[in-house]
């Protein structure tokens, strides 16, 4: 956590050109790793590429001044969810090696749909937010502000969410139980 804050402080002192370069590196890493993930022939490799993507996204959060979200991303996604996914790989006894038929015959249609969505989204984003710039003196939102908001303004969604987690827990146990 302190590393994140240090990085945050370092970023806030650096010039925007440096930050932009940092972002470019993260973005390229994220996109390339994501592409590798969806094309990899090895389930475990795909999981590791996902790890890379998620770490890069955490870096993007740091750039955006969302230190707490970045920390949560690392803890929950990289820690818990990745382990869960690897357990899933293990329990379903996928081969720990290359497989040839991980993609289905529909992949070209999928690629077409993906590219189509990318096209319309990029176009509308350019149209919508063409020149919008983030504020220069971006004030990092402190963890305190986030927690005040969660436990004040958004207490009810938070409670609903805790119920959802409970329901998901019970549901997962019921579904996966051997009986």
């Amino acid at each position, binding site marked *: 956590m302190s590393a994140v804050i240090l990085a945050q402080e370092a970023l806030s002192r650096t010039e925007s050109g440096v930050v932009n370069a940092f972002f470019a590196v993260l973005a390229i890493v994220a996109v390339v790793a994501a592409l590798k993930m969806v094309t990899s022939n090895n389930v475990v490799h795909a999981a590791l590429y996902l790890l890379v993507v998620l770490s890069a996204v955490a870096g993007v959060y740091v750039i955006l001044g969302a230190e707490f979200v970045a920390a949560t991303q690392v803890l929950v996604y990289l820690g818990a969810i990745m382990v869960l996914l690897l357990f899933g790989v293990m329990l379903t006894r996928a081969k720990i090696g290359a497989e040839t038929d991980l993609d*289905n015959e*529909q992949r070209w*249609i*999928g690629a*077409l*749909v*993906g590219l*189509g*969505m990318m096209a*319309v*989204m990029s*176009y*509308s984003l350019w*149209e919508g937010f063409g020149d919008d710039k983030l504020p220069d003196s971006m004030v990092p939102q402190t963890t305190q502000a986030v927690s005040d908001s969660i436990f*004040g*303004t*958004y*207490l*009810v*969604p938070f409670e609903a969410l805790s119920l959802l987690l409970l329901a998901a827990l019970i549901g997962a146990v019921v579904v996966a139980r051997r009986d």
Partner: protein
Amino acid sequence: MFAAEAAETAVSWFYTHAWVIPALPAASFVLILFFGKRLPFKGAEIGITAVAAAFVLAVLTTFTWIGDVQAEIASHEEGVTTEEHGTTEGGTTEEEAPATSSEEEGLSSGEQAAPAIPAAEEEEEGAHATRGAPIVTERTWFSNGADTFRIGTLVDGQSVMLLFVVTFISLLVHVYSTDYVHGDRRYTHFFAFLSLFTAAMLYYVLSSNTLQMIMGWELVGVCSFGLIGHWWEEKANSDAALKAFFTNRVGDIGLLVGMITLYFASGNTFDVVEINSKAISGETSHTALLVASLCLMAAVMSKSGQFILHTWLPDAMAGPTPVSALIHAATMVVAGVYLIGRLYGVFWMGLSIPGSSINAMAAIGAVTTVGGGLLAFVQRDIKKVLAYSTVSQLGYMVTALGVGAYTAGMFHLFTHAFFKACLFLGAGSVSHACHHSFDMKADMGGLRKYMPKTFATFIIGSLALAGIPPLAGFWSKDEILVGTGVFPGTDGNGTYWMPFIFGMITAGLTAAYMTRTIWLTFFGEYRGHAHPHESGPRITTPLIILAFMAVVVGFLNLPEPLVSTLGLPEGWAIRFEEWVEPGGIASFPAIGHASASLPLALLASALAVLAGFLAWRYYQALYAKDPHAAEYTDGLRSRNSLAAAGYKVLDNKYYLDHLYTGIIAGATKGPIASAAYWINQNIIDGIINVAGKFSVGLGRFVYHFIDQGMVDQAVNASGQTASGSGQFLRRIQTGQIRQYATLMFGSAALLVAVFIIAI
């Protein structure tokens, strides 16, 4: 002690701490639940203590309120009488205002002319220019995003009145129950539920926003469900509980929809005062108010047993008698009436009550009075007679509110609570003596010799119910009949012929069926096989207290002409109206008041006496032949085919139950199951392709239609299209989630593209 201190401060301690009153029984509920069984009196003592404390607080609050209102009236008489307020623009009549209320009327019209008072400033405004402004004590409950939800209490005349009634009757019922359900296997549970009910009802009554009202409303419903099914081992009882619950569910949908409509229509607020103010000032659209009031009317119909949703109320008599008295006669069932009064601005504007001659509320109420009254004739079960009588009287209250006679409706609620509780507890006392049977024909008769106290109190209650002067029911019923504005010289808020006629009919019916009940129960020869005896003091004392109240409470609202005629002190007139009905505030409509009419009072009373007399002669003659017969074969209905047909309809309760369970439920149950199956088979599978199916069908239809140009061929073609496209689409249904997802994302991308190009 508190009152003395509080009187000096601006807002009394009792108003700001009104939450203590529901909190006491709520605490008692928890305590009884956890510790009740280990205590010497099995938890009853906690319940009685808590309710007694709540009662004391409620009485003190009532007196504080009355004192404040009187002070307001006095100060306003000093300050305002010099101003000239000629005619009643706020009211509905164009003539001179009735003498009874010209000052309030004039004042309210003056207030209306001024810019609308914001709800927040009402308290200060209310101090010198108005009367009975609600006192709201609130704090933030929770906030979500930009919306803040508040919780608090609202004290005004209406809630103070209900506080008094609920705590008073609850206390008596608690005492009564210690004897009545003595030795029951769920004695502790019973008292816990009574406490919970009392807490829920008080909470409902004190709600300052509609969200709290919904909570209280549902809570009392749950308590009602639990207490009707108190002896759930018998299937009839648990069925009755379920019926009550489900029928109320129907209305609860209306409640939710209505409250949500009001929330959005009044600019995102749940606040009762604000909703009313905005409705009256015209800020809320009339359409929204109409929709909301009709939806809320459904809720009122279910909770307050209004016609066609009343069927649960007589069945609810399966519960223990004290419960029937407290919940299904005096308090919970008036929650609907209370709802109307609480949101009176909404109903007033939504249903256009002033100046019209009919509206949904008045019509429903009027039909209910007569429908319930007729049904009371064919019951063997003494509690069911009283239950239908409750339905009928609730109809009166709704009628009164529907014709704009607010005070009359509230006053009838008030008086009815006492005499109906008295009657129910009396019926319980009778059944206590007769081996817990409620069958008047088989197990009762001639009981006046065995149980004089019960007899006397029951007679008083019945006379009050039948509206015989000068008992309580007479005054309130007379006000309702006056309030319809039909009788010459009454000048109500409109000319409501139908409610008037139905009200008059019911005045006669009530007297007749109560005479029948009294005759079957207390006169003639004893037909049962038990050894009837008078009940113990814990049962008779509440009866006597309630009978006393049934005699005196009517004098709280003497009409002004009567007071001046009899030369009584001026302060005796329309007390109740001054205490309960707010005047000249933004959150309450400017109501015109009908003036009392002596001929009408005489006519209604004569009708009641005549009907009672006829019924008396009929039953006397009927039982003269064989005083011990449990069932009669040569009564009116065996001699007259019309009467027999009428009896059959009534005996089947207008076939409403058949309609609900046989036709509606039966007809939907099967089809719903098969429809669900069909949807499973067809729709869910095809949902992604519905648009495609539709456009293919439409395209072919248009093609054939234009091409062939003939309707019959087009019809044939569309049939072929349906089967053809079905065959074609069947192949798309691969069951592959992936394909469905592809279609979904692809369509989404296409749609976005369409939007980008089109816009």
